[in-house]
């Protein structure tokens, strides 16, 4: 079976074609992406992002079909991101999905963006039943699949909505209580006027490699949840002091001048330590040794390294993917959509809405046992 996936919940427009053959790994026929890059110091606004998606989507779908050599008649279903994400970009892509569905006479499958990330990560890395850290510009969650063998009933954090379908859902163990970790990094890149090309987080990572002084930033972990807005506020103030030299130059406790690179380094070290800590707590709760990192921030090699150190300490290991699959893409939507489609799930056209709020634990994950 072959699925076309359309993703546009944020500033990346991704188109993917995937083939599932029983008892074989999924085959990626095409995975292309076009990113809306805003000028340094600015974020991507919904209307500009939607407009970017609208102007590129036809080209990308055509290119995807062409490079894969797949005929429209071979496509079994059309999968699109139902949410969560930014409203206007989501709507633009949903309209395209509906149009293609009616034009080609193919069923539609609405996909939860987060579940797309998780399923793609599992498929690529072969991690069987990991604790998942999903970190991106819009989301920060620690997730595990609720299987019966885990005695989840005793974990009060999420036993409040026990349902008979408990065993077929991803459960959110911990999450950011305010802004996402990627949002924190992106906004700090704006403060420092760092380029958004190819991604603000990537440029922060490169600068952080040159930093060596750790400045003290707030560290906000509450159980398995965490918060990033306070960290951002403090590091923004430090950046302002660093750039203006007022009221006095920014110095380390040892009297060394603090650089922009030091701030990037300190920010990364602090927020990643928070992420690794909440992930470790979730692993201790469910008794899992595997951890999978997905989402755009998951590309960060320092985060992968820190997670690896933690996992090895617990006798386990870390699974991560590269930018093709970590960063938003169409193939993950095609993959997760096709998994659902194979269990008989379709989204009728009249229900093919999209939504900015769509929790990972709302999805019935029928394809896993």
């Amino acid at each position, binding site marked *: 079976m072959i699925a076309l996936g359309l993703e546009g919940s944020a500033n990346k427009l991704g188109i993917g074609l995937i083939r599932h053959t029983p008892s074989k790994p999924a085959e990626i026929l095409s995975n292309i992406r076009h990113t809306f890059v805003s000028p340094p110091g600015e974020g991507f606004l919904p209307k500009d992002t939607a407009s970017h998606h609208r102007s590129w989507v036809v080209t990308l779908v055509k290119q995807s079909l062409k490079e894969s050599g797949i005929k429209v008649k071979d496509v079994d279903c059309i999968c699109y991101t139902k949410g969560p994400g930014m409203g206007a970009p989501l709507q633009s892509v949903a309209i395209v999905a509906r149009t293609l569905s009616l034009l080609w006479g193919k069923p539609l499958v609405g996909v939860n963006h987060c579940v797309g990330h998780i399923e793609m990560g599992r498929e690529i890395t072969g991690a069987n039943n990991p604790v998942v850290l999903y970190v991106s510009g*819009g989301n920060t969650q620690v997730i595990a699949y609720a299987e019966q063998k885990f005695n989840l009933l005793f974990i*009060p954090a999420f036993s409040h909505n026990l349902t008979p379908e408990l065993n077929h859902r991803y459960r959110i163990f911990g999450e950011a209580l305010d802004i996402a970790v990627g949002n924190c990094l992106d906004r700090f890149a704006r403060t420092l006027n760092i380029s958004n090309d190819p991604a603000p987080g990537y440029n922060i990572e490169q600068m952080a490699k040159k930093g060596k002084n750790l400045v003290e930033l707030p560290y906000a972990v509450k159980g398995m949840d965490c918060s990033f807005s306070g960290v951002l506020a403090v590091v923004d103030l430090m950046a302002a002091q660093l750039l203006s030299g007022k009221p006095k130059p920014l110095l380390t406790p040892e009297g060394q001048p603090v650089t922009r690179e030091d701030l990037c380094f300190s920010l990364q070290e602090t927020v990643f*330590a928070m992420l690794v800590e909440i992930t470790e*707590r979730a692993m201790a709760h469910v008794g899992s040794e595997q951890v999978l990192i997905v989402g755009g921030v998951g590309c960060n090699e320092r985060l992968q390294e820190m997670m690896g*150190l933690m996992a090895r300490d617990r006798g386990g290991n870390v699974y991560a993917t590269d930018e093709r699959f970590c960063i938003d893409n169409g193939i993950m939507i095609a993959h997760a959509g096709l998994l659902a489609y194979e269990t008989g799930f379709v989204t009728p056209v009249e229900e093919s809405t999209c939504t900015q709020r769509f929790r990972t634990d709302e999805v019935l994950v029928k394809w896993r046992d």
Partner: protein
Amino acid sequence: MSSIEIDPQTPKLLIKQGAEALVYSTTYLLPHIPALLKHRPSKLYRHPTLDARLTKHRCLSESRLLIRARSLGIPVPAVYFVDESRGEIFMEWISGSSVREVLDKVLAQEGGEVVVDRMMVKVGAVVGALHAADIVHGDLTTSNIMVRNAGGSELAGSGEREVVLIDFGLGAVSTQDEDKAVDLYVLERAFTSTHPKAENLFQDVLKSYEQSFKGAKAVLRRLQEVRTRGRKRSMIG
């Protein structure tokens, strides 16, 4: 406080390995004084400066909460010795079983609820006393409430045994009803997910809590709110 060398002969037995800390049963000063050692090992993944800062902060914060609670007569383990640079707290060994263990045993029997009635009243009063002192526990589950052994007496006497709150690793000082209500909410979830019968027992806890301090009614009103939304927000983009 500078580091002191603990006698290497002191036997340490690992009894629990959490995400953050290792818990040992050991002795303090004399071989016949049993003690619990909570050790926060350094984490390789963290920057050494950050690691030292967090370990020290958490050790001191936990000890302060325990001492503050104890000085107000709230039953918590006594702190014997703190070495914050090594991330170690030695505290009183509470011999007994957790409320969860007691409930598991008692509720398996017919009519077992009656036996733990008095215990529930005590739990409510102790949590109330904690909140009256503006301390929130942060992880108030039935596993973190102990019932002290009274010279080997069995379940029948569990109503007469002292209830002790343990593990203040996620605790904080807070005057906010919200934080206190979340404590109760977490405890309620722990009760209701243990056993269907335990739900009624929790009502006894709440009744006793309500009478335990002046602000209790406001916290219980807040609990209603926390219940309807859970602890989780709806997810944005």
